[in-house]
């Protein structure tokens, strides 16, 4: 069976085992009353004790960089001028977990954001959302509660790179939604130049869970190196496509199926592995295996699509996402995508694509060129047999099904 992102979106987000983030959502969105039936009010927590709890469970940011949340909280100066930014821009078309969470459990996200704001002694909370339905869900949630008056809900439609956290804080400061050219830390110089605690929506929902469950119960499920649950988007030829909440530490093969063959871990800035092997799914484990989980996308290609064509399509999408600030990305990504097209018709050798991918590493203001390079370089390794067939025949005989979604928008080819 071939699943597309349409299926992933249509499938009801499901929890395997312990439902926490998705608790009570089987019947749909939780309004405030139903939310309070399911979740306790988060315990009030000072910054120090919240950081201790975050450290005890080793919570890592759920947007992609997997930065330790306790460190980030302690690195943000408290005070009424400090901002809390909830990043729900989710600009990667393969990922649906954030919009699923915001659509179904908006109050959990707000609980977490408000708890962090309280711990930093500020009322300034900015919620940044691209998806229309998620925006509507959060807007209704903000109206439903009295403690959310300081929350500013911002529609942010600035693509993949524009959703990068520093681009988001710049846009919130009235500037362009572009990553800055110099290294700046949002915790020090964020919205309006103020200290800013910014993280992904799921991070805030996890913080809310931690504060209502307490450390021991929170860490009662999941892997030792990253306890609790995580949201994932499963995509393509997998047993259950769609958004899932799973305890960390499950075997990768349980999520993407046991059959041998390539697995994409971490979405379009992610890494292709030759097969699921014995890996388990937690951020620290996957990172040390050289395949960071990023925003939690796991994908497999079905046998009946042209795998190299799928990779090339995503490479063109990645090229289109360049915001044109940095030459090596703006020129290098399209050149890489075109080289993959040439590889698919057997006109160049793999090494030509490899070289172009290598040239991207470390040559941009943000991680976009590096992520794109990782995606393509690892694909070239795991698809060596397919590439050999393309080299010999100029094609593989299989149609390009478009299993890896690129947002439906026009992709320059």
């Amino acid at each position, binding site marked *: 069976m071939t699943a597309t992102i349409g299926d992933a979106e249509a499938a009801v987000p499901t929890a395997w085992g312990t439902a926490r983030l998705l608790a009570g959502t089987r019947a749909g969105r939780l309004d405030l009353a139903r939310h309070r039936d399911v979740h306790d009010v988060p315990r009030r927590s000072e910054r120090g004790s919240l950081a201790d709890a975050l450290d005890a469970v080793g919570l890592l940011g759920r947007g992609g960089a997997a930065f330790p949340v306790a460190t980030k909280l302690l690195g943000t100066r408290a005070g009424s001028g400090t901002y809390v930014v909830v990043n729900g821009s989710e600009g990667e078309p393969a990922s649906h977990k954030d919009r699923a969470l915001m659509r179904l459990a908006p109050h959990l996200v707000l609980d977490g954001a408000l708890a962090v704001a309280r711990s930093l002694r500020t009322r300034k909370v900015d919620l940044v959302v691209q998806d229309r339905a998620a925006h509507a869900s959060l807007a209704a949630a903000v109206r439903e509660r009295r403690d959310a008056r300081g929350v500013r809900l911002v529609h942010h439609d600035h693509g993949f790179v524009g959703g990068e956290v520093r681009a988001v804080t710049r846009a919130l400061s009235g500037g362009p939604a572009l990553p800055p*050219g110099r290294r700046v830390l949002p915790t020090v110089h964020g919205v309006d130049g103020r200290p800013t605690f910014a993280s992904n929506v799921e991070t805030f929902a996890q913080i809310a869970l931690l504060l209502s469950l307490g450390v021991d119960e929170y860490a009662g499920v999941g892997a030792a190196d990253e306890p609790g649950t995580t949201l994932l988007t499963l995509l393509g030829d997998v047993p259950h496509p769609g958004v899932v909440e799973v305890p960390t530490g499950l075997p990768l093969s349980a999520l993407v199926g046991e059959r041998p063959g390539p697995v994409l871990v971490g979405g379009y800035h992610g890494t292709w592995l030759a097969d699921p092997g014995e890996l388990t799914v937690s951020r620290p484990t996957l990172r040390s295996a050289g395949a960071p989980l990023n925003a939690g996308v796991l994908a497999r290609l079905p046998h009946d699509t042209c795998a190299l064509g799928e990779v090339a399509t995503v490479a063109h999408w990645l090229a289109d996402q360049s915001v044109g600030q940095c*030459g090596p990305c703006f020129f290098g990504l399209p050149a890489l995508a075109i080289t993959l097209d040439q590889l698919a018709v057997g006109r160049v050798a793999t090494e030509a694509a490899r070289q172009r991918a290598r040239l991207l590493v470390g040559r941009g203001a943000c991680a976009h060129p590096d992520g794109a390079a990782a995606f393509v370089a690892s694909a070239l390794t795991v698809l060596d047999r397919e590439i050999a067939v393309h080299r010999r025949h100029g094609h593989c005989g299989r149609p390009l099904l478009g299993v890896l979604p690129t947002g439906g928008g026009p992709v320059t080819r």
Partner: protein
Amino acid sequence: MRLEIDWTRCDGHGLCARLLPELISLDEHGFPVFTDRRVDQQLARHARRAVAVCPRLALRLEQTSPSHPVR
């Protein structure tokens, strides 16, 4: 010292590669490729000149300290 670049400023004029070919070459689009970001005493003068002539002020030299390890 270490060479740093603001990629959002660089327009690929390429003067840096002319003045500091020991550390900087250019890709096919004319943008700098660093063979090594570290600048030793021997090349410091050339590196400073390369920084000084960058028309976009994209290139700079930063002091490296033990707390800021060189990657």
